[in-house]
């Protein structure tokens, strides 16, 4: 292998002076995804044509993925619809790598969820693996130790033969990467729907903890400070558009085809995590940024924009895996497991000593300057000279056309009211079991048992509980809970309401564990923004989420937008994933999601209305999607959460389980399945009080409801609490035996429940080790 500096085949770089001298040279901006207007604007900014290196940087940084050019207009609401209470515990808000929330006792939690949808369809294993890797590096770059991951997965129809390919690849990719990093996987979501057939959604969430004083930000301050690249070497992976660009500049015989999907090395990332944490402990880093989308282009321009504004880099100092890479490819490479740090010169030796200890390759690329320009040299020649803000922050912003979907009125008019409600007990039993055995409600342990949920020793709750929970402080027991939710069917019917429903469910799931919801992150998965109907869905969902967060007074700390999720012209259902973070002062006070003891009273909190539009029942039993999703009243959700917190503080709740998809029937089944303790339940009083029939009582998805178990001796106290707060409460049964008996309707043994729920995924995807 030839050393880079002496490579005889190195093509001449397109320098700044060359760009000035050849203003009319044609450039492949369109192939790089830039419009003619955008290209013209770059020329205007620079006062000349861009060099090919500059064009590479602008094209990736102005892409939808990096610039949020279609969504920015709407995302501003998250910063505008804010009350003072929402800012109180927010240490870092939107715009940084991840939001940071003060959780007390000097601790902070940072979390973020991000999409890796398209790579995961093309190459499910590496796409999903590097999705985990990327989000974890976002967390490290805040100065935090990553402590858990979760994944929000949406696949095509379970019976479609291609689904198994994607499911196997994605699951093993997450398993391979997350397990090898030593991060517990504590929850997430898995849905199957034909709308995701050609475009699965693979969202990855990571969460980290830090002491307040360890907070790090991505900025390059301090003229003369060194800019250091460390971690894996830079290779040709993850270069999408660059190969198009490179075809212009490549010499004969150079590699032309680059994989567009990155390849992950979790061991390198694990070592990088420990190395970064040791660097933070030694206070050896002034600013830090991970390298993800757009690689060095993104890291240099963002660090410089957020700091003193100037930076000088010698690009040939980048350590390469493949010495034939061109300057443009190095700028755009998305090779994984790399970080960029800003280091004071007097700390450089100590910095290098730490990276040497961890065998992490490191190269000093350049330094922070006061020129206000990002200047990049390649073997002594200037190939980039730009104002970094124009690359990183001042990309185009579009006001895309928005149109109310032509089909929506008809869809909303087609309600579930016309669907047949069975009254015969045996038919209701059949419906109950077909829901429990439907792919979306069935047991997901085929997937989750491929993930390590134990490592780090702080997992207080994990799948299949309503939320994951991690202990932050081993002395005090301080911890956090995390739940993520999205219901694409609801959002298809009404994206404004659908987003609020996702928010309400995540809020309720966190409250069900005994934690107090405090912060939101989101991952907004939609079709093409160039489709005005999709843009309308997006605007509605963002508005619904922003309004809802303001109403709950819970801040949105950050998030991610993924557009272009569609197959041909058919967009996915709008799928805004909401992640809710909650705080609990001692994880020992967490509430189990299932029943562990016989003889406890079962209470249903909240009111059940006939709300079956968009429900699992309508979908599974009748193959129906239409009408309007359930109403959501956020003050009611707050009252429910407050009631639960009050009851838990008196230690009188034996279990709590959120009611959502599949309604009361599914909540009852899951509560039995958690520990194998059954129950006797009667619905007569509920049906009478709420004026509903058995179908509605069992399967309605009304919000603001929770199923709780209370020991008999605490009964009076619990009822008193509910009555004092005016929250609707009804005793519907008692825990008993190992069967689920719904009196007058049906009895199903725990074994049959388990067999029904557990058989579904293995039947399609093969046996597991369980």
């Amino acid at each position, binding site marked *: 292998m030839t050393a880079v500096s002496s490579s005889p085949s190195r093509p001449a770089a397109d320098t700044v002076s060359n760009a000035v001298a050849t203003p009319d040279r044609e450039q492949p901006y369109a192939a790089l995804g830039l419009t003619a207007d955008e290209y013209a604007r770059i020329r205007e900014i620079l006062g000349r044509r861009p060099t090919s290196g500059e064009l590479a940087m602008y094209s990736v940084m102005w892409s939808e993925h990096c610039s949020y050019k279609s969504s920015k207009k709407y995302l501003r609401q998250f910063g505008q619809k804010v009350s003072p209470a929402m800012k109180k515990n927010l240490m870092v808000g939107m715009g940084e790598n991840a939001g940071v929330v003060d959780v007390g006792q000097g601790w902070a939690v940072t979390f973020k969820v991000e999409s890796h949808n398209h790579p995961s369809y093309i190459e499910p294993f590496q796409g999903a693996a590097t999705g985990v890797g990327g989000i974890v590096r976002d967390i490290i770059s805040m100065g935090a130790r990553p402590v858990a991951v979760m994944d929000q997965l949406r696949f095509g129809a379970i019976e479609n033969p291609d689904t198994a390919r994607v499911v196997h690849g994605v699951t093993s990719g997450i398993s391979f990467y997350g397990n090898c990093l030593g991060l517990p996987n504590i929850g997430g979501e898995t849905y199957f729907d034909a709308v995701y057939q050609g475009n699965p959604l693979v969202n990855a969430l990571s969460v980290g903890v830090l002491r307040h004083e360890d907070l790090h930000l991505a900025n390059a301050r301090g003229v003369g400070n060194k800019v250091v690249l460390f971690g894996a070497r830079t290779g040709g992976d993850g270069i999408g558009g660059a190969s198009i660009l490179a075809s212009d500049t490549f010499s004969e015989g150079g590699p032309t085809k680059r994989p567009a999907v990155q390849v992950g090395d979790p*061991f390198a990332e*694990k070592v990088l995590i420990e190395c970064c944490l040791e660097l933070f402990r030694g206070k050896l880093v002034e600013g830090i940024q991970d390298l993800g989308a757009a690689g060095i282009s993104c890291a240099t321009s963002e660090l410089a924009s957020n700091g003193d504004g100037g930076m000088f880099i010698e690009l040939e100092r980048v350590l390469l895996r493949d010495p034939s890479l061109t300057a443009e490819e190095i700028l755009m490479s998305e090779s994984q497991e790399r970080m960029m740090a800003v280091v004071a010169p007097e700390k450089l030796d100590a910095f290098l000593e730490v990276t040497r200890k961890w065998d992490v390759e490191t190269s000093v690329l350049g330094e922070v300057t006061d020129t206000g320009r990002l200047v990049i040299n390649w073997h002594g020649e200037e190939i980039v000279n730009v104002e970094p803000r124009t690359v990183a922050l001042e990309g185009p912003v579009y006001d895309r056309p928005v149109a109310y979907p032509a089909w929506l009125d008809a869809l909303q008019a087609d309600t579930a009211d016309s669907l047949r409600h069975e009254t015969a007990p045996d038919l209701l039993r059949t419906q109950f079991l077909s829901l429990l055995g439907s792919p979306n409600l069935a047991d997901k342990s085929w997937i989750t*048992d491929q993930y*390590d949920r134990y*490592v780090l*020793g702080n997992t207080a709750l994990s799948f299949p509980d309503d939320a994951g929970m991690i*202990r932050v402080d081993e002395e005090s027991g301080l911890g956090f809970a995390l739940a993520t939710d999205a219901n694409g069917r609801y959002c298809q019917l009404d994206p404004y309401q659908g987003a609020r429903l996702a928010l309400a469910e995540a809020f309720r799931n966190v409250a069900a564990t005994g934690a107090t919801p405090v912060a939101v992150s989101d991952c907004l998965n939609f079709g093409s923004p160039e489709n005005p109907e999709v843009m309308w869905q997006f605007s509605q969902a963002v508005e619904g989420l922003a309004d809802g967060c303001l109403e709950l007074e819970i801040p949105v700390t950050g998030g991610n937008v993924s557009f272009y999720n569609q197959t041909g012209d058919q967009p996915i259902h709008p799928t805004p994933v909401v992640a809710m973070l909650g705080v609990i002062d001692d994880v020992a006070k967490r509430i189990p999601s299932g029943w562990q003891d016989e003889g406890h009273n079962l209470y249903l909190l909240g009111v059940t209305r006939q709300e079956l539009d968009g429900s699992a029942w309508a979908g599974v039993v009748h193959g129906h999607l239409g009408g309007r999703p359930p109403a959501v009243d956020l003050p009611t959700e707050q009252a429910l959460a407050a009631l639960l917190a009050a009851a838990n503080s008196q230690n009188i709740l034996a279990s709590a389980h959120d009611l959502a998809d599949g309604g009361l029937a599914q909540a009852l089944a899951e509560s039995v399945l958690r520990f194998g303790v059954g129950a006797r339940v009667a619905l007569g009083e509920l049906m009478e009080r709420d004026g509903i029939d058995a179908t509605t009582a069992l399967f309605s998805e009304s919000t603001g409801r929770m199923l709780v178990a209370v020991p008999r001796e605490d009964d009076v106290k619990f009822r008193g609490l509910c009555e004092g707060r005016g929250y609707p409460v009804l005793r519907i049964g008692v825990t008993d035996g190992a069967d689920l008996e719904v009196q007058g309707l049906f009895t199903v043994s725990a074994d049959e429940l388990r067999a029904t729920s557990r058989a579904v995924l293995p039947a399609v995807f093969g046996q*597991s*080790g369980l």
Partner: protein
Amino acid sequence: MRIGVITFPGSLDDRDAQRAVRLAGGEPVALWHGDHDLAGVDALVLPGGFSYGDYLRAGAIASLSPIMREVVAAANSGMPVLGICNGFQMLTEAHLLPGGLIRNEVGTFVCKDQKLRVENTSTAWTNGFEQGQEITIPLKNGEGGYIADEETLARLEGEGLVAFRYLGKNPNGSLRDIAGITNARGNVVGLMPHPEHATEPGFGPDTPTAMRSGVDGLTMFTSALQGVLAG
């Protein structure tokens, strides 16, 4: 009463093993794979993880780490040494224990609360159990299938060197349902399941009594501490 826990690049459950030592009443000592120094500890734990990514055979590269020279010498002189999961793989790669570990028969990583039977209670790490005691501790690995040639298996069975056996469905295709083994002297024990994750109420496996309350793994660490105290 000082138990060393060695961190290799890619070790994951090292801090968890340290916590388990502390919960058992011992003093955990963090050791680094690149050193030739056991810091005067009384016993050693090789923790779980994916040392060097396990891109070669699991544990193969770590078994060549500098500190392994001291580990082998200490083991041969009778110091209690426990290898958990990746640590078990290292002990077989370093020939302190016979046989080897291969990819799970199901082909995937498996994480579950695993029932085991304690088959040998005369080792440094199992003397606190009762013979035949059934315990539950978490299992989580991708390459946990224990293999050895027939002759070795016959010797292990004949000399009572099988320390733990899987109960219920064999989770990874291990021959003879072997979950863990000991050397003849009883000071070196390796197993695939993770006793350090069943040592603290609230963070272990579920039990019939309460969620995540299982602490069956604690006995392994108290066994070693008692042994050191007695010795």
